[in-house]
């Protein structure tokens, strides 16, 4: 099975920044309510940054980090704490979806409008090439797994 699990640096930085400013606001609020002034020091900011990095990493791993493994028979997708494995032949149609801001996903449709979305841009796979490869897998044709290259 081929596996890809790239670090989603934007999501990680967003998480860390959100926690950093959240803790900072919380600290300022508690200070003001207890002492009627806000105490700030670079040591405090450095500690906050370290704490935010640790908490951010944990939050990122449990919510955003995606691991995708696949071969010609099936695939397994793990995002945060949720995991799903399926066979390509369970799906009948494949589409390429633009999610905005240059982010693409590949949708696998079962009969009807029920679909599963693979976030190919986050996984650093070439969206267009992966779409064609997934189409071949869904049709039950052989495909060269090494043919995929990163980026669009």
């Amino acid at each position, binding site marked *: 099975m081929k596996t890809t699990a790239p670090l989603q640096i934007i999501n990680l930085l967003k998480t860390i920044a959100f926690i950093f400013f959240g803790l900072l606001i919380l600290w300022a609020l508690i200070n003001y309510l207890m002492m009627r002034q806000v105490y700030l020091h670079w040591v405090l900011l450095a500690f906050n940054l370290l704490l935010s990095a640790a908490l951010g990493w944990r939050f990122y791993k449990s919510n955003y980090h995606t691991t995708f493994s696949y071969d010609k028979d099936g695939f397994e997708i793990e995002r945060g704490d949720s995991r799903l494995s399926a066979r390509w032949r369970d799906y009948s*149609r494949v589409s390429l979806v633009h999610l905005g801001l240059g982010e693409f996903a590949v949708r696998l449709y079962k009969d009807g409008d029920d679909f599963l979305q693979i976030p190919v841009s986050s996984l650093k796979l070439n969206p*267009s090439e992966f779409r*064609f490869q997934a189409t071949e897998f869904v049709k039950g044709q052989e495909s060269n797994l090494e043919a995929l290259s990163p980026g669009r």
Partner: protein
Amino acid sequence: MKIREYLLRLEDDLMTGGGRWVADFTESFWELPVGETAFDMVILGHTRPRGFLLSRFFAWVALPNYPVACFAYSGDPELKRLSPSLKAIAEYREKEEMAWAWLVIVNEGPFSRRAQALVEKNDTKEIGIALVDLASQEITASNSYIGRRMGRIAKRFK
């Protein structure tokens, strides 16, 4: 330029904002059967662009959100498949309540004079047709507003 290469360029261009003044195309299917015919590529979208913050709010308030589509097929210089394709598109439009649709017919050579005249005379408001000759990079578009817009958007040779 080969047909597949052209269609990939058109798809990439439409999905990353090439048609944003007309519609926001978001989802693309290849080799999609529609009714009794099959299209090489079908890209679905909406007339309301997504935008960001203010532009998104403005679009949400001011613009209608009708579904639209761009259909494409290839290798039909005599337009023998045109009639069943238009019928399939009309049925699909009605089913999905689409405002309008584009039909792009791509060929690695010239279209017949009869085919070009047929498309140039077509002034159907809801379906814009464009014939793309990849050899001469010539585009013949139907004579409706949607058709003329497609004629400009279909120039994706570089």
